């Protein structure tokens, strides 16, 4: 069997700052590789076609749907999940704001929501509530009604801007 027709692919990537090697089925999605092979269950599979945002990851600095990217495509990539962001401490204020504002109920959307919100916050400044809503409009939350999430992101944007860290 030639490489082109192989159903397994060897990959090397960085996940949450650690080097990872794997031999993955060609059709395996990145979120399934992270969840099933690496045990990183923070990102969740839900709609499985890129609509709900529950599997949102950071890949090479971009917010990416883990259900729309194959693990094989992540060869050489730098991947961050909510577990890594937590250990790194870079989202501590946002996570604390989510807890303080109860911007989560069942929590299934939350890891994806955190990654997506960080994508907006990384642009700096203080986005308007409408801009926050627009940016998060690819992340489905059935529990909260979104207002608390918008509040939490807005609070953190203001705090980061105030500290001059944004």
């Amino acid at each position, binding site marked *: 069997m030639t490489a082109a027709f192989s159903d397994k692919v060897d990959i090397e990537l960085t996940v949450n700052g650690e080097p990872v090697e794997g031999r993955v*089925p060609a*059709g*395996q999605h990145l979120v399934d590789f992270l*969840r*099933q092979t690496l*045990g*990183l*269950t*923070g*990102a*969740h*599979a*839900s*709609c*499985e*076609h890129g*609509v*709900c945002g*529950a599997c949102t990851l950071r890949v090479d600095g971009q917010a990416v749907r883990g259900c729309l990217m194959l693990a094989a495509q992540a060869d050489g990539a730098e991947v961050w*999940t*909510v*577990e890594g962001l*937590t250990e790194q401490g870079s989202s501590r204020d946002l*996570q604390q704001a*989510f*807890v*303080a504002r*109860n911007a*989560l*109920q*069942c*929590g*299934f*959307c*939350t*890891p994806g929501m*955190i990654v997506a919100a960080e994508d907006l916050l990384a642009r700096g400044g203080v986005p308007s*509530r409408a801009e*926050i*809503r*627009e940016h*998060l*409009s*690819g*992340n*489905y*939350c*059935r*529990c*909260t*009604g*979104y*207002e*608390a*999430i*918008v509040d939490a992101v807005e609070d953190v944007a203001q705090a980061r801007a105030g500290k001059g860290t944004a």
Partner: protein
Amino acid sequence: MSIAFGNPDRPNSYIGKTVPRPNAEKLVQGRGRYVDDITLPRMVHVAFVRSQLAHARITGIDTEAAKAVKGVLRVFTGPDLAEVCTPWVGVLAHLKGLKSPPQHALAVDRACWVGEPVVAVVATTRAAAEEAATLVEVDYDPLPVVTDTMTALDPDTPLIHPDLGDNLAFQRLHEEGDVDAALADAHRVVSARFRTARHTGVTLEPRSILVDWNPAEGQMTAWHATQAPHMMQTVLATHLDIPESRVRVICGDVGGSYGIKVHVYPDEVATAAIARVMARPVKFIADRLESFTSDIHARDHEIEARIAVAEDGKILAIDVDDWTGIGPYSVYPRTSAIEGNQVVNLCGGPYDFANYRAQTTVVFQNKAPTCQYRAVGHPIAVAITEGLVDMAAAAIGMDPVEIRRRNMYADDAYPVTSPAKMRFEGLSHHASMNKLMEMIDYDALRADQAEARKQGKHRGIGIASFIELTNPSPFMYGIGGARISAQDGCTVRMDPDGSVVALSGVTEQGQGTEAMLSQVVAEGVGVTPDKVRVITGDTQVTPYGGGTWASRGAGIGGEAALQAARALRESILAVAASMLQADAGKLDIRAGQVVDADSGEERMPLEELGRIVYFRGDTLPKDLPRELVQTRHFITMDYPFAFTNGVQASYLEVDTDTGVVTLLKHWCVEDCGRVINPQLVDEQIRGGIVQGLGGALYEEIHYDEDGQLLNGSMADYLVPMAGEMPDMQIGHVETPTGESELGAKGAGEAGTAGAPAAVMNAINDALRPMGAQVTEMPFTPERILRALGKIDD
């Protein structure tokens, strides 16, 4: 000693305050443990072959190609599983006449809806199971398909279940007073046809179950995303012929429920049956298409309704003819007749009127089964009632707020029994309306509407008063023969370090149950909430209880926790009194310290009391009781249900060129009795409102006439996303129930109950000058343009 709720400065005053949720931190860190996060040794995966036809006889199943797929271990058909799993029938004795045929874990000889599980394929990976499932060849002989609700009982409509004699599952007529006479004599009678679309819950976490059977121990363990672990324990034990004591259901983190995860699903029971056969862990996680075709649907109602009013706006009569199609089976064990029954019970709910007639007709169809979904029947009943009231107001030229004020039960009228024979212990319609008017500044909003109208912007204000059924007694299910507990229990214990553990039969679905329990127990015992560890969702560990449904967690589970906590406090103080040579009545526990009740002087930390009781019990008097564990159960007895009330307002703008509705703001005043945690209650209401807004504007399951589901993905079934949702202001009036010391009623469904009606009334308020009106949900741009006469093809 009762709690002085009126004094916010009382010691240990955690009830009524926003305290952090103990389980939120793990969820924001991605450290939740949902069913799909669990991997067990020797675990296998099941995928289901589902019927692609809405009604067909199964004439043959060829599994050879599937079995040849690498990783496939077993393939099960309906007859295979019928040998180890008995069928069930979704009826309740108190819903007279309700009928439904036996339903199997896998279809045995006939499939009755698109998505019904027919064959189960078990493999070492989910991918292999799915691949093999596509290779199973099922031969079908198509049967006539019934999809339309309104013609389901026509003589020439084929019968879905010939053995039942007709397509009628349930019918109930309730009559009070003389409706026909009231209609005949009324100043005005207004009629309307309403329609609420077929919805589904779209839980972000799909239905999930992982079941292990250990034949050496004779023990089944199911990790299940469920709202009712004890109910599921009974169901699995009953139908798999295992002693109930040998079935353990564990419900860890659940990724959204909203009623979807309180039912018995054939594929989930099949998973347990397969585990029983294979004696190893079997996992089933529904994919999104499976969720759309096999999660319960709801709210598929068509209604003709009339209201009769006097010249002064007094409601003389309400007449409702409600029809709903429930799919081919009444869902077990709660049944699919409850929703229609609720419509009959709830229409006209806020209003003091004499003549009421309501009939619900519940028919079978070849579509996915419907059953209880958040706010069961309420959004339908509130839309009918509040739609009619607004139309009546317009017909007699009265302000919509004024007509409500003239008809709502007076706040001092209670207790009172409604024309639907619902008993209300204490409601606050007028106080709630007054509060809403302050919050929205009604006159200013009307002025803004008028100003916008001058600029060609069509804005509308919609008001919807409502009642909500919470804290159910056994009148909901138990009297009908279902083993669904209306009672709930809590065990509270103090450990040697002075910390407290609370084990409760209610469950956490994200609504904040564990935070609520932690603060109730903290106040009841006299420790800080962070000293309380809450354990829920394990039938082998917690007291028996009902779980999460019908907004019962705080009202029932919270009261059980309070009583258990108070009992533990008494036990601790009895020991403390002995140790301190003091009068127990003059001691108190505050922030984990035994104190002198009058002076507040600290006498002994609880960890010292714990050290003595657990390690130096020899120093205590021999006859001194030192049980630092207490269990209490609570059940409501005086009223079948604790009704709450509230009122919502929607302000929105309708683009009459595109038909697009923009939600500007939404308000809700809710009276759920004692508010235990203001933030959690407000967020329950906000989330509920948005779920209702989805029904009002977006959500609709479409089937074609062959019973094919047309929009089974999240790209095609629209749900509310952040971009379209408004900010929401929430207010409260508190009328505690006298049935419990805690006084809490439910709050989880109020938002969903009232939001669709508020939006409908706001849209119609905006459209009224153009002579247009919409009553068919969701209010899509197309439906609005049709109402405006801008589309007529």
